[in-house]
């Protein structure tokens, strides 16, 4: 478990800011203690400092993971969020999209969300901003990137893509082996 380099910290926070805006600092300064990001094998883990101290007692070779995996750095040094981060990101997301029940399954199979599946959208959502996807009963089921602004959504073709798929809870089953 090592501390992220300056470059990688910047990339990580840029990515997080895309989804939760200024609330990033709430992720770190929490009422139940300070949390931090650590890296192991290009994967970034979100872990409380208390737990981190305990984890350091384990020999690094034997330690597979500690904390929650937020995502991983690709070979081209880009950060990719994993669905495991959803629990922490969903409450802070300023922009949300609700999908109709009929379109939920499509999304959970890894497809983009099209206009006909759009149930509701936060007003003033900008283009290419990270959004959290909810079912109509307010359960977060993944995240994506808005491909249109709220205003544009209104006039979009029923088959036009509204949100690009990034991660969904279906991955817990589909790519169980790659998620850590």
């Amino acid at each position, binding site marked *: 478990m090592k501390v992220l380099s300056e470059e990688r910290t910047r990339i990580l926070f840029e990515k997080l800011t895309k989804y939760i805006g200024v609330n990033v600092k709430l992720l770190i300064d929490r009422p139940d203690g300070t949390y931090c990001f650590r890296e192991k094998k290009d994967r970034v883990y979100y872990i409380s400092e208390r737990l981190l101290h305990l984890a350091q007692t384990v020999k690094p070779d034997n330690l597979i993971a500690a904390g929650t995996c937020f995502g991983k750095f690709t070979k081209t040094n880009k950060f990719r969020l994993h669905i495991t981060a959803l629990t922490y990101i969903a409450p802070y997301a300023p922009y949300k999209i609700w999908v109709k029940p009929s379109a939920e399954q499509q999304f959970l199979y890894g497809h983009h969300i099209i206009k006909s599946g759009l149930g509701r959208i936060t007003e003033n959502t900008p283009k290419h901003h990270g959004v959290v996807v909810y079912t109509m009963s*307010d359960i977060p089921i993944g995240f994506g990137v808005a491909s249109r602004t709220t205003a544009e959504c209104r006039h979009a073709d029923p088959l036009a893509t509204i949100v690009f798929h990034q991660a969904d809870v279906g991955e817990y089953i589909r790519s169980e082996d790659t998620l850590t």
Partner: protein
Amino acid sequence: MAKKGKIKISKVKRNNQTTNKMRKKGQLKLQRHRTHVQKQKQPTQQPTVEYSSESEAESEDQFGDMLDDEEQQYLMSRLSKQPTLLANIPENEKPGKRSRKRKREKKEKYPKPTAGTGSDSGAESAGLSDSDSEVEDKYEKEQAERPAKKMRPLLPIKTKEGLMERAEECEDSESEQEEEEQKPDKSKQTEKQSDDEDSESDSGMDGTEEAETAGDEEKVVTAVELMAARRDKLQHDKLRIGALCSSLLENPEKKLKNLFPILYLMEDRLKDGSLNLISVRKLATVSAFEVFKDILPEYMIRHQDYSNIKLKKDTLALYKYEKELLEFYKRYLQRLEKAAGVLRRKKGDTRKVDEHTMSLALVSLRCMCGLLVARPHFNYATNIAQSVVPHLDCKDPRARDTVTECCTNVFAEDNKGDITLIVVRLINQLVKRRNERLDPSALDCLLTLKIRDIDMDAEAEIKHKKKQEEKHKKRIVNLSKKEKKRAKKLKEVERELLETQAQESEMARRKQLTEVTKTVFHIYFRLLKTAPRSKLLAAALNGLAKFTHVINLEYYSDLVAILARLISDELIGARERLLCVRTVLAVLAGAGDALNVDPAKFHAYLYVCMLNSHAGRTQPDSKIILESVSQICARARRVSAAVLQAFAKRVATLATQLQHHGALACIALLHHLAQQSKAVSTLLEADSEAGGSGRFDPTLPSPEHCNAHAAGLHELCALARHYHPTVRAAASHVLRGTLPPELNKMTPSQIFKAYDGSEMAFKPAIPPPKKGDNQTKKISNTHAWAQQSFKVLCETVENNVPMVISSKT
């Protein structure tokens, strides 16, 4: 007639002056004073005096020479100190006393007796149009008839040659005196405040000179006489106007010329230069207004040039009549506009406007408004609107109210849409020009616009579709130039045909209304964008909230962006920001299914601000809050459950800190929320611990994350013990999942209004205290003693002290 007479008078006058000059050649020094004396006499009278009684005039002139200004002043002051000096002399003989004013009075007087009722135009000028000699003859005769007593002795004056006895020609009629006496009338009248509407302003006479002389003559003239004189004049003019108007109404085609004297009476000054009575001007204005209201046709008069076409006699007559009518109408409107112009001051114009001119201006404005309402399709309606609408920004609230009412009436009665559009456009211009300096009440009239069933979206869609179809059509049918021209002409003819149809085509009306709507939103958006910090913001937001049903959804994102910026602007008042929230929520609730957006930011702001309203100073805000939450309730299915629960909890909390009408409305709203959403109704259940994780945090600013599902609505228990009986009943009803039937029918805002106790009207009425109850309570409330020993002590003291108090000590 007026012109003719005037010329004559001036001619005679000039004649006099030239003859005088010739006679007095070499005595240039006298000139100034002489003219003074001359002017005082009736112009036509002058020559006779000259020729018939030469000596008399001579003597008058002589002493006139010798009396220079200083001496005059001295005499004046002496007289004022010692009125007994003049005790034996008739009062209007005071030397040097005669002012220019007097002359004016006389002049004014002059046309009166000759001016008969009805068609007096000829009568007056007839006497004057005679040749000079004739006039002279007449007056010579008159002069001869006059008795000798007309000569009155005056105070002697000292000259180089010694004492000089003087005498002056006497002014005969007492009516003149009366006229003169009107001057001080004014000052007294103000004290008296007579209830007669006309007499409220008789300042027609007042000018600077009059005011000066008024002081001198006040002593001699009684108020009763003044009033009588004024009343006589008013009565005379009233009769004249009345007769003119009624004869005109009997036969407008023939007697249209009667308008001329009426319009003449509206003038500032009469033709001989004297001031007109304000009351007369008002009377003339109002009478002409009534007349025009009766004789103007509903349709617009259009005139082409018929000069080279032969017409039937009748047609020609009608055409002529209409032309004249238009001409009179135009003049009338010009006069009204001029009079009403006083209300609007130019920048830097600091002249003081007196109350009477102001009231005349208000009357004129009212007449213009009345004409606009009565004949909105007649010619010059646009011009009237142009001169009336800027008064919306007048400093005088009466003028503003008048115009607002006028606009309201115009909007209400206009079923064609033209004039509405014109007025709205003018208001738009006004807003553009004045910007944030505009008075907030100026926009009130827009709220009364009848914008209904206009689907802006549909309009745009149809337009778009049409355009595409036309393109398509063009490609298919390639018309030749000739054919195109023909089609164009055909369209024009069709349009004209439509116009001639008596009934207004629905299409045209809708088109106009759409245009009106666009302009109105233009006004509001401009205010939102350019002057968000002015007082006008509230007016704009109110308007937007009112017309949400016709708002173009194209604007929605723009609107939300602006309002989102506004609610984060610290310089804007809390109330205005709440209005912003309400506007957005109202638009969303109105838009229905068309918009699937979640106004999270506005929800959060409303949630935070709700508790800022309480029973004290911020009570009025609670109305906006309740309306906003009702809007949320209206689209409850589109709002997430957590938010609804949070709002339900907050509404319950709010109920405890509002007055009873607010509390009742809150309870009703809570009930509606519970009915709309299952999540909220679980909050009301006694054993609802099914919320799961988390703990309710009321301090959190976000309604989504405050874990409202874990909260209980324990406020309702407190409300069940409220001081207001209806609140008690409602609270316990809601706990059982129902609402008292009398509240069930009303919306929260209606309840808020109905149970408002600020007017000291209580609902339900407070029952009178029962007699029996009171007594039993008193007994039960007697003092309880904690220590028996202390009680005994007190009683012994009380018993030992004599209870009879002697008043003698």
